[in-house]
């Protein structure tokens, strides 16, 4: 593979040598996986769309959703996208003179991003429990069922993303910036950005749509 034909999107650059070569295949594979996952979200979304009227006399969006909390979650996640960008930046443009230094920045940004992710999960958990208190549990109606499936699916992805990040922090500290750590970090940041994009769909379609 000649270096002139790198794929667009997140990448490392020629300076990274073999890691850059490996990223070509790994990233493309991961892109495909994400697109498949995109379809998954799309389908759950479509089911949500068909179930919007199926409240079966139970609580509705207006009874259950909390505007402030959704605002906060969105802000947190959006901010984490920026910090995730910083992870890619510190990965790609390492301080050539000081390995320790590079790793420090890298780990710092991963931890900040993960922390924001956890705050998001915490807020979501709080939403779920206040909803449940008001009788908004998944078994109450077709609409709630698909609400929990869609938002919960995103939440589970977020949890996996946080776990993954923590594992990568340990690996970055243990192995330094080995090729495999680099390509994994790149896939992780792709994943993180992707989850934010999905969230844009969710806050628009589910929450803002629900408030109207």
């Amino acid at each position, binding site marked *: 593979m000649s270096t002139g034909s790198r794929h667009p999107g997140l990448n490392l650059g020629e300076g990274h040598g073999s890691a850059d070569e490996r990223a070509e295949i790994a990233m493309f594979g991961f892109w495909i996986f994400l697109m498949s996952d995109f379809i998954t979200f799309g389908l759950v979304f479509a089911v949500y769309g068909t179930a919007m009227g199926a409240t*079966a*006399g*139970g609580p509705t969006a207006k009874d259950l959703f909390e505007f402030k909390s959704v605002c906060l979650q969105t802000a947190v996640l959006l901010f984490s996208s920026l910090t995730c960008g910083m992870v890619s930046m510190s990965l790609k443009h390492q301080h050539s003179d000081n390995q320790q230094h590079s790793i420090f920045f890298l780990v710092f940004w991963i931890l900040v991003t993960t922390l924001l992710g956890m705050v998001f999960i915490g807020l979501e958990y709080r939403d779920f429990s206040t909803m449940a208190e008001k009788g908004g549990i998944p*078994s109450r109606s077709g609409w709630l069922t698909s609400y929990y499936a869609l938002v919960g699916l995103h939440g589970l992805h977020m949890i996996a993303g946080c776990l993954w990040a923590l594992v990568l922090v340990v690996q970055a500290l243990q192995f330094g910036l080995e090729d495999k750590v680099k390509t994994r970090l790149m896939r992780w940041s792709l994943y993180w950005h992707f989850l934010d994009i999905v969230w844009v769909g969710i806050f628009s379609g589910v929450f803002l749509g629900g408030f109207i």
Partner: protein
Amino acid sequence: MSLLLLIPPANASATFLAPLGSVAEAQRSHLIWVIVLTLGAIVPVLIATPLILWRYRYQNKKAKYLPSWAFSIKLEYVLWGLPSIIVTALAFKLWHSVAELAPYRPIESQENVAPLCVQVVGLNWKWLFIYPQYNIATVNALNLPVGRPVSLQLTTDTVMQSFRISALAGQIYAMPGMTTQLNFIASKKGETLGENTQYNGDKFAEQRFAVKALSTADFQQWVSQVKDTGNQLTAENYHILAKPGNAALARKQLDLKNNEALNFNALPAHLFHRIVNRYHTHSAVPDTAQPGSPTYEAERASLPSLDLPMTNFCTQMKKELQ
């Protein structure tokens, strides 16, 4: 071989190949059209395959051998063109027939009589037919007057089923809490069979019913006979009827005689709508209250009261010639 089988056997009665009404007849003629058109693209393959194999067999050194011949633009036009033309023709026919034979579309009849309206409830494993215009109901027996359009409205009180009367109309799904429609007309007297085609448990194959297309007079007579001699269909009786089992079991549980027809005359008001609305009461229907569930307990089940919204199908047909 399969083509030979398309010719209906003399006494095949429960198939649209021996239609009793205009819908099934149109379906049959559409089938023949489609087969003929499609054969236009397929027969060349059936002919060419043996010819080519024989002519260009390895041993035949006389046949032309062009190992690097791999493309011809003229041939390409034919190879893409032929199926495209045939598919265009097929698509054209398809579009028209689908609109024309749509199952929800009411049938127009020459005599301008109001359609016979029948409400169909799929149960495990039998069919309940409600004739709201006459306030009678039957199990596994659908009687119709010849020449009068029939409008069916269907639901089930268990899992999804598919209601089919092949010789008259084909099939449509019936689902709990929902209603579908099927319209047709019988154009000649005769008997045929209807059934469920969507597997729904052990006695699936027994979920069949007799269909009789009668003269108007015979039909009227049958109606009055049911009115006179039928049994009461109370709510309790309905719950027993809804229990999983075939018609024979229902007969036994309702204390009827062995061969007695399951005919009913006094019905709970708006039975059909209450069955549909069973699944729209805004509270969960426990398994024990779901007919068709192995854990169903007839005593626990109830039909919703009438304060739920009702579907309006058939109401406009109520102004019936009683």
